[in-house]
């Protein structure tokens, strides 16, 4: 992941209400090894069954509304992270997915109507600091919510434990 | 010359005056029992090229192994069986929830004295407790019985096991049969028909006799049998309208072995990992830490088993970090235990009461162990990996011993709790 939150990569576009069972099915919940978790990313999203075979490092997932609704499972973030997906851009995120992503330092951006501006395979340039997204393939630019505040601090630290490190060490 | 139980029943089925051990006869079984493996059997059956089951009236199908379905695979398997049942017009079908096939078969009046029963399950000998000749067969054989309605069987040699003496407090039919298996060895009765007799067996309830016959499989026997008596008849009353003819061994029958056991001094027994004949008195293993205590299965999942467990557990609480699993063998058993207040007692003591079925016994769900864990179980097998984990250990004992051990968190002598 780029600590600078600037990425360039190929887009995969999926629809609204992609729930956590689609991202990472409940039957794999007992897994605790992230590499094993990575084998099941998006397996239950219709049309994305072979995602893990086709995804390239740095690819960007573009989704509709309410991405990650459902379970609290952090596996949903980890499975994308361990497939080297660079970021998820969604029209909106479900709250636990949002938190989990922040806490794991996994870049997420909210951009209204993004699925109307991007097709699978388009080349995207993202600057999460400003919320600017350029669709290189289509030659258009859109703006979303920029990364800021506490969430950015946590993500810059590489996640919640990175952020808490100073505090935890100070206690000792 | 006198004939054993096995000779008489097989001769009669074969339409012969008499048969000798080693002789091969072709017979028509009265019942063919299959369970969750019915779909696999149906597949073989179709591969033979046959379309219709020859005698659908003999088929008894009970879904018990993984119920309700624990995975999509199990769900699909059950679905295929339901379709097969419908397509073949099989009427004796018991869907998920009825109980373990070896309990449901007799409860529904399909295990009767003088019957020849074959089943695609190794514990089919259980039905010998009703005076039937009941043997486990393979899937391919089961498919061929479906196709032809017949089966060839070799007339087995027979053992007569005579149990005498007075059964001490805290010692049960499970301890007797574990002791016998320990004595004879896990292959000690290979291919044999084992007749259980003697005053102690005569005194036993039907449930306790089922324990003996069920575990005949663990000494390698083809069949185990207790000849029918008034208890059998009374148990079967109201369960069947079928005609049946009781069969008894001739008093002058020739046995390969006649073995006598006096149980007056018998201690509660425990089978240690990983074979059923790895037997010791419980006093030798008392104190071994257990993670899980399991009372149930086709061996010891009946009312009398839960009664004794409840007697020990009532008003007490199981040990911390110990799980107690209760698995009634059937809907009928569960209802009786509920009516008796036993279920309430067990739950209050900290037990998990599972829905009737095979549950964790075969390691498919509902109580699989972690590596390094130990279960003390009332089941019939303690093979490595049997309960789903190869790095775990299973000890076998009576329901009383398992209940006592759940209280202490270690293998405990039930006599101290009775």
């Amino acid at each position: 992941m780029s600590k600078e939150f600037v990425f360039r990569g190929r887009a995969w576009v999926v629809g609204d209400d992609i729930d956590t069972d689609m991202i990472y099915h409940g039957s794999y919940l007992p897994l605790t090894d992230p590499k094993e978790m990575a084998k099941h990313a998006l397996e239950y999203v219709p049309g994305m069954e072979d995602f893990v075979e086709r995804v390239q490092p740095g690819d960007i997932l573009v989704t509709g509304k309410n991405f990650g609704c459902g379970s609290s499972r952090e596996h949903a973030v980890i499975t994308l992270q361990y497939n080297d997906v660079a970021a998820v851009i969604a029209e909106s995120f479900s709250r636990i997915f949002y938190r989990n992503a922040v806490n794991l330092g996994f870049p997420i951006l909210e951009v209204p109507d993004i699925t109307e501006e991007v097709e699978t395979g388009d080349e995207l340039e993202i600057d999460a600091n400003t919320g600017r997204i350029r669709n290189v393939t289509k030659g258009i630019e859109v703006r979303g919510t920029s990364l800021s505040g506490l969430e950015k601090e946590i993500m810059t630290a590489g996640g919640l434990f990175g952020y808490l490190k100073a505090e935890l060490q100070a206690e000792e | 010359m006198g004939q054993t139980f096995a000779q008489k029943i097989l001769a009669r089925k074969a339409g012969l005056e008499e048969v000798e051990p080693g002789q091969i006869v072709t017979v028509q079984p009265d019942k063919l029992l299959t369970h969750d493996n019915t779909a696999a059997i149906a597949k073989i059956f179709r591969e033979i090229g046959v379309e219709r089951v020859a005698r659908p009236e003999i088929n008894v199908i009970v879904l018990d192994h993984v119920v309700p379905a624990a995975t999509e695979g199990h769900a699909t398997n059950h679905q295929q069986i339901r379709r097969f049942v419908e397509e073949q017009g099989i009427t004796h079908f018991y869907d998920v929830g009825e109980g373990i096939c070896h309990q449901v078969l007799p409860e529904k009046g399909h295990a009767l004295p003088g019957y020849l029963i074959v089943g695609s399950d190794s514990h089919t000998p259980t039905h010998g407790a009703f005076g039937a000749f009941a043997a486990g067969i393979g899937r391919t054989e089961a498919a061929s019985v479906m196709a032809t309605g017949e089966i060839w069987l070799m007339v087995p040699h027979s053992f007569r096991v005579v149990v005498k003496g007075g059964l001490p407090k805290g010692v049960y039919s499970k301890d007797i049969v574990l002791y016998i298996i320990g004595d004879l060895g896990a292959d000690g009765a290979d291919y044999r028909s084992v007749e259980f007799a003697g005053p102690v067996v005569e005194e036993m309830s039907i449930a306790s006799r089922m324990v003996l016959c069920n575990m005949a499989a663990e000494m390698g026997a083809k069949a185990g049998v207790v000849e029918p008596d008034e208890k059998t008849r009374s148990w079967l009353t109201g369960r069947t309208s079928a005609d049946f003819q009781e069969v008894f061994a001739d008093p002058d029958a020739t046995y390969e072995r006649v073995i006598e056991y006096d149980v007056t001094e018998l201690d509660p027994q425990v089978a240690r990992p990983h074979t059923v004949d790895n037997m010791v008195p419980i006093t030798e293993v008392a104190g071994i830490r257990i993670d899980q205590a399991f009372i149930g299965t086709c061996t010891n999942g009946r009312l009398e088993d839960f009664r004794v467990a409840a007697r020990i557990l009532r008003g007490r609480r199981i040990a911390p970090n110990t799980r107690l699993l209760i698995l009634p063998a059937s809907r009928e058993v569960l209802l009786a235990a509920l009516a008796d207040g036993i279920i309430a007692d067990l739950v209050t003591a900290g037990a998990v009461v599972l829905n009737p079925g095979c549950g964790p016994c075969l390691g498919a769900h509902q109580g699989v162990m972690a590596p390094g864990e130990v279960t003390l179980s009332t089941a019939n097998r303690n093979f490595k990996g049997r309960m789903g984990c190869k790095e775990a250990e299973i000890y076998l004992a009576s329901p009383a011993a398992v209940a006592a051990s759940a209280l202490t968190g270690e293998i405990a002598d039930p006599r101290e709790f009775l």
Partner: protein
Amino acid sequence: MSGKTIIEKILSEHSGADARAGDRVWADLDLAVVRDFGGPNVVLEYEKQLGDKPVWDPQKIAMTFDYQAPAKVVLVANNQRACRQFAVKHGVPHVFDVNAGIGQHVLLEHGMVLPGGVIIGTDSHMNLLGAVGSFSTGMGTTDVAAGWATGRLWFRVPETIKITFKGEYDYPASAKDLTLFLLSKIDKSKTIYKSLEFYGQPIDSLSLAGRLTLASMVTEMEGKIGFITPNQSILDWIGERAGRSVEAVLPDEDAAYKEEWEFDVSGLEPLIACPDNPDNVKPVREVAGTRVDEVFIGSCTNGRFEDLKVAAEVLQGMGGKVAPHVRLVVTPATTEVAMEAVEAGLYETFIKAGAMVTNQGCSLCTIGHHGVLAEGDVLVSTGNRNFRGKLGKGSQAYLAGPAVAAATAVKGEISLPE
């Protein structure tokens, strides 16, 4: 400056800051809970980050094993074992093992959930405890591990929507129907991340079970939490269990709400959420007649005694028998519920009707346990999610209240209770 909403008050109280919607605050936790799902990941993360460092407060950690209880696979058995070992090592006293039931309900029954408290847990339906005015919320493993280490966590103070109901409705409509009604009316893009506060006579008259039903599905509304102000009888119920008197947190009269909505539920009729989304809600009568293969009564949404009682009464009233082609799986939420149901004779009603009553816990709802569906199977469930394929690839699920579920089980097709 305007007054505060419930969430602003609770987070102010727990952070020492003047918490206002939109702020990021670090709040003290009253309880950080893991299940057997998520729990092992938390343990691993904790140990990876902090090694042997003692947890912040073992009394404020709870473990509840409800996801797969008892374990179906070695992996889960091992995960549960890892949690138990962590609990022993860190002196965590509150381990509710596989015999306890659904975590949130168990904690509530044990007096560990107080109005105004802040609780996190590895369960997206943690927020159902908003039913008693507690701010409880589902979190990922990193959050909970950090909570175990430090006793506090960052929160984005949500904006609040005040939702007031009016009107009256009669049986067979229930709290579930009110919940589904709300799901069908709201725009999730407005409720996402929001705290909801529920008011009005229809809410005041809900029992604890009904309140839990509504609050449990705030997750499906994409809300962060849904608060129902506990009445005196609920405060007494909690107080008795907690061993201390408890008070409700009320919003200020001039609290600033993002929006205020009012819904009239006069004449509410039984509703059902159709595949594949909880908000795809229709009147039951519109889909009546749809053939079903399985019915599930239970879950953190509708697994209380009251829910089982309604279902048993409908079952009884409609003939007392489940349709032959239907599997009915009934799961009490907790041991306490199970015991009440046993004592009230509900187990007997269900089991005699042909149902399978499983041990307490999440059962079918968390997949992998107790009735997974085959391709093409149709389920009516009292749970809270019907996402595509959640309970078996190629299966379909409808969500309804217990009365409709029971009626459907009897008829074998989606039906209204008679």
